[in-house]
């Protein structure tokens, strides 16, 4: 692909989407790639804010007595802020906001998303919510837990619940706007020849995610508005004395927040479905099954919210139905894991950094998913409800799944996004540290929960200390694993672009343009003539022989 006819940068390289470096050009950009970078900067910031809070919590939990934080309430505020920041400001926007924004138009052969201005607006809306979140943190925090359960949040808590509700409400709109943009883009902006079954699975997964964003987020919005009104005017909607019902809030909240789990993890599937075939040099196994599994997860996800409420006084029959439906969600998830595994079978595997993250994802997500099945069983859930077992379970999904996938995706597309390669040695080391540190942090929590240590307390019985010390030790390793990429990825920016268009020899339209891409992505009209993942052993040899840019 020739870029000779196009404008050049000062240093003689062809102009790309990063060429214009003025602050205004960044803050007013409507380029999906630049909006992706803006998201990358912000989610990284929020991730480390949430991470520092997690570190403080683990420090507190190293000893059975409360000693690091002054009061139990300070601890309550810490775990609430950790949850709010990590979920609403990191996990939900991370992969769709960064990688989705950057890659979706490139992958379908479009010049931009359907609504570039709305895309930029979504980032601003997100930042307003995020800044409010940090403001709350600085001025004292919220102590309700990220779930804002009534009646505590509406009648008793004397912290910034209304501000937090507004922040979550606003951030929700950012996610609706992103979802809308993705859906419309996939429908109308595909290049000629890019049929639905030629779409990369990354796009399918993001489409399913976008559906959940558009359908689920408004219900969360309405729930937090009701919380705000109830606190300000005592309407009585959640107050039993006035005819209200605190459980109504749980229904409304989980109707969004369970599907939101899939908002967080489906984009992770998106990334893994791209990495696994590339580093196995094989077409993905069962393309249509994986594609439809994403949509099935999006649909089933809306029918299982009651499994958060097994002990909330919901009827036993409702509990049984929700339990069965929750088992059903495991089927499409398992289809994906089995298909990725089948893709590995007899592939010529290469263990580069993205692949290490992807393999880590598969193992950890499987553990997280299987313990999810345990929690969906009524009897076991009654035993371990609100214990560390639940905490360990969802961290295996959210950190072991989504965060690993996000890091894998960032490492996979970093050469495309920046045009630079990074140090493979450091990359592999950090992937290893994250994997080891993660398991050391959260596996003991399964045991703690099973033994009966409740979540959300800042003191615990002395016999739990050994496992808690292990968990805290793991958290410090995990922290190193998360900080390392920050350094070597940023250091890679110091050198001249050396990645070439396709350092991994991957298929997909995004790898056929230069790295970093130009503002309008493609120089000539795109025509798609074949499906995705056309990997073969011969092609692998050819690719690696002709490029040999990348050495491990």
């Amino acid at each position, binding site marked *: 692909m020739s870029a000779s006819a196009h404008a050049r940068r000062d240093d003689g390289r062809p102009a790309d989407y990063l060429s214009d470096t003025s602050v205004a050009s960044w803050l007013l950009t409507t380029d999906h790639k630049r909006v992706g970078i803006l998201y990358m900067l912000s989610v990284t910031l929020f991730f480390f804010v949430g991470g520092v809070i997690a570190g403080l919590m683990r420090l507190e939990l190293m000893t059975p007595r409360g000693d690091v934080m002054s009061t139990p309430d300070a601890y309550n505020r810490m775990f609430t802020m950790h949850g709010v920041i990590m979920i609403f400001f990191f996990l939900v926007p991370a992969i769709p906001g960064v990688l989705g924004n950057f890659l979706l138009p490139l992958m379908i052969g*479009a010049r931009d998303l359907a609504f570039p201005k709305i895309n930029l607006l979504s980032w601003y809306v997100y930042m307003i919510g995020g800044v409010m979140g940090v403001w709350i943190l600085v001025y004292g925090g919220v102590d309700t837990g990220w779930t804002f359960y009534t009646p505590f949040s509406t009648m008793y808590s004397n912290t910034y619940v209304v501000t937090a509700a507004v922040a979550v409400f606003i951030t929700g709109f950012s996610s609706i706007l992103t979802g809308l*943009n993705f859906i419309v883009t996939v429908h*109308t902006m595909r290049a000629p020849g890019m049929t639905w079954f030629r779409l990369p699975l990354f796009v399918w997964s993001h489409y399913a995610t976008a559906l959940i964003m558009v*359908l*689920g987020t408004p*219900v969360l919005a309405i729930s937090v508005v009701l919380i705000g009104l109830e606190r300000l005017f005592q*309407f009585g909607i959640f107050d039993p004395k006035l*005819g209200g019902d605190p459980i109504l809030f749980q229904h*409304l909240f989980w109707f969004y927040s369970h599907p939101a789990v899939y908002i967080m993890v489906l984009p992770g599937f998106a990334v893994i479905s791209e990495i696994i075939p590339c580093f196995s040099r094989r077409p993905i196994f069962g393309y249509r099954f994986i594609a439809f599994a994403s949509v099935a997860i999006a649909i089933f996800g809306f029918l299982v919210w009651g499994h958060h409420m097994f002990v909330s006084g919901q009827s036993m029959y409702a509990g049984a139905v929700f339990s069965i439906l929750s088992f059903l969600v495991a089927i499409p998830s398992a289809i994906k894991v089995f298909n990725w595994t089948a893709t590995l079978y007899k592939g010529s595997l290469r263990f580069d950094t993205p692949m290490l993250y992807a393999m880590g994802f598969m193992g950890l997500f499987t553990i997280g998913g299987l313990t999810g099945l345990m929690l969906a069983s009524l009897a076991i859930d009654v035993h371990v409800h609100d214990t560390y077992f639940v905490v360990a379970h969802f961290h295996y999904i959210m950190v072991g799944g989504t965060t690993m996938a996000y890091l894998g995706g960032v490492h996979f597309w970093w050469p495309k996004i920046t045009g630079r390669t990074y140090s493979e040695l450091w990359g592999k080391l950090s992937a290893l540290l994250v994997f080891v540190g993660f398991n050391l942090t959260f596996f003991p929590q399964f045991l703690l929960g099973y033994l009966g240590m409740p979540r959300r307390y800042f003191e615990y019985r002395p016999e739990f200390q050994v496992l808690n010390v292990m968990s805290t030790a793991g958290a410090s390793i995990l922290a190193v694993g998360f900080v390392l990429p920050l350094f070597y990825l940023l250091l890679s920016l110091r050198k001249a672009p050396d990645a070439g268009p396709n350092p991994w020899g991957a298929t997909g339209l995004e790898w056929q343009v230069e790295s970093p891409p130009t503002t309008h992505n493609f120089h000539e009209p795109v025509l798609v003539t074949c499906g995705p993942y056309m990997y073969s052993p011969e092609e692998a040899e050819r690719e690696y022989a002709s490029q040999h840019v990348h050495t491990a």
Partner: protein
Amino acid sequence: MQASTSTLPDAGTGRQILLSHFDDLDQQHLSSNLGMWFFLVSEVMFFSGLIGAYAVYRALSPVAFERASGHMDLWVGFFNTLVLLTSSLTMALAVRCSQIGDNRGIVRYLIATAVLGTVFLGVKGFEWKQEIDHHLLPGPHFVVPAEDAEALRAVSVGTDGQFDPVKYARNLGHFQMMFVLYFFMTGVHAFHMIVGVAAVLIFAVLAQIRWFSGYGTTQIEVLGLYWHFVDVVWVFLYPLLYLIG
């Protein structure tokens, strides 16, 4: 695209401007429309949680909901329904005018739509004032009217035919819950109306100064979708809130 005598891409006449990331006008038009449709799907979910709550509590205490609904003036509501349906007609006519390139028609019908929308809001505000004056706004000042309390007492009987105080308290609570849902749902609807009226007025000004290319066919159609949706929400709210008593 409508037939055009001018080939110039200038504002107010001729064809719509094609944004650089689209291939052709059809794609651009389809994208805008689809975007609004999916936004409306999102809006449906915004109201559906509330309507779900309404269904659950009405099933639990049907009499309380009927008594509460009796306090709403169904003829005022009927008048408002007529006003809103007429505004949908004028909005549809504005969309039609944009398709045939009648700029004066666009401005005229948009203003008519905004006026009708404002009438609706005024009547709604008048209704709210009445209800608040009768202490029917949920909160510390809420009072269950004596005759309703009496009627609810009469139906609050246990399986043994005796008066059941727990049921009575729940019925009184759900009487208030109906008003919570009434004020909240009509309030959220009114908020959408205010946004709609503001947007319609802005569009009328923009059409007047011929800011749109191609008579704003796409933009006005998208605005029309939003307006009709807000209308349809009222068509659901009116029977649920006014007509069950």
